[in-house]
């Protein structure tokens, strides 16, 4: 086996080792962090859309608005 190949194999072991080490550390850190945050800084689950409002608009209205926005964009850009 060539020297290059040897260093390649070594690289593979080191590399995969580091990748696993890194992500295992991350798993541990996440677990600790999540526990701490949920215990000491709990927050209301983030919900980006306001479902109440969105649900009220039926699809045809959304379609109409989408088209209007399209028109608006075309005119204004």
């Amino acid at each position, binding site marked *: 086996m*060539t020297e*290059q*190949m040897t*260093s*390649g*194999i070594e*690289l*593979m072991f*080191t*590399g*995969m080792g*580091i*990748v*696993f*080490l*890194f*992500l*295992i*550390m*991350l*798993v541990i*850190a*996440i*677990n600790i*962090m*999540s526990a701490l*945050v*949920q215990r000491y*800084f*709990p*927050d*209301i*689950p*983030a919900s980006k859309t306001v479902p109440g409002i969105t649900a009220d608009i039926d699809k045809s209205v959304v379609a109409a608005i989408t088209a209007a926005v399209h028109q608006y964009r075309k005119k204004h850009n």
Partner: protein
Amino acid sequence: MENLISLWHSTGIYNFTGGQAFMMLVGFLLLFLAIKKGFEPLLLLPIGFGAILSNIPVAGIAEEGGILYYLYYGIKTGLFPLLIFMGVGAMTDFGPMLANPKTLLLGAAAQFGIFASLLGALALNAIPGLEFTLKDAAAIGIIGGADGPTAIYVASKLSPDLLGAIAVAAYSYMALVPLIQPPIMRALTTEDERKIEMQQLRVVGKTEKIVFPLMLLVICTLLLPSAAPLIGMFALGNLMNACGVVERLSQTAQNELINIVTIFLGLAVGSKLSAEAFLQVKTLGILALGAIAFSIGTAAGVIMAKIMNKFSSTPINPLIGAAGVSAVPMAARVVNKLGLESNPHNFLLMHAMGPNVAGVIGSAVAAGVLLSLVK
């Protein structure tokens, strides 16, 4: 008359070399794949067009004074791939991963494709006429990371001559994920395993999403600072989005900025698709190794998931291991599709998003290893 002769001598017909013609056809093929086959069009369209432009004889569009020559500085300095990575970070929701952190390990296992194909490249040196240096091999291996900007960043640092072929392979195989992965996934799992339903994920709060990118950056700093440019810009984008106080910056990073940089990056990558660099046996090797890298990464992810399913208290569907290669979000969608085939009530999309984004981190880490050890 003199003018006419001088004009004739400046036509493309007169100056065309076979290599240029062939590379223009490659460019057209990429455009075809992008437009008609839907292969990662956002990148492959500009790359293909860049390939055409840079192979137009006489015009010198990729040579000093030409626009592609100047755009290439954005790759040389690392600016373009890192800005894309920032934008991708801003678009990434780590919620599913934070809800089930052990799936991060799937994103680790799937990086085996990177190192396996690195070895493969070195093994190909046995074939006479092929000569990959360790740097070349590392740059080729990173295709297995299934992440475009990471591949371009690493290739630009380690092996800029192979950049064109590597980028094309990376994006093409990402587009081919729905073809490459399913047979491997089916071969390595039983019908019963594919039917496994997973527990619904908890909702992850805003604070955890804000803290995570910072934590990621700290761990990267401590363990592997050579990955810090990639992980750092990714974390920046993610933080801008998660924190909610710089919405306008986050929106710009996800939209206009990433769009502008994508056009420039694609064209600049295309400028590396010159006949001399691309028309070599090496390129065939790169294409073959890229496919191997994706396949091995997929297999490693699935096998890891099977092992974890054995030891885990909660059930883990081995299919989600395939998403660990990254190729966000295609790989996760493929998982979802295969899950539904075996069990129509089995929605794995969210469960696969965890390993999927973990795969992005995993390949950035692998990139850091390569950048720091391969000299």
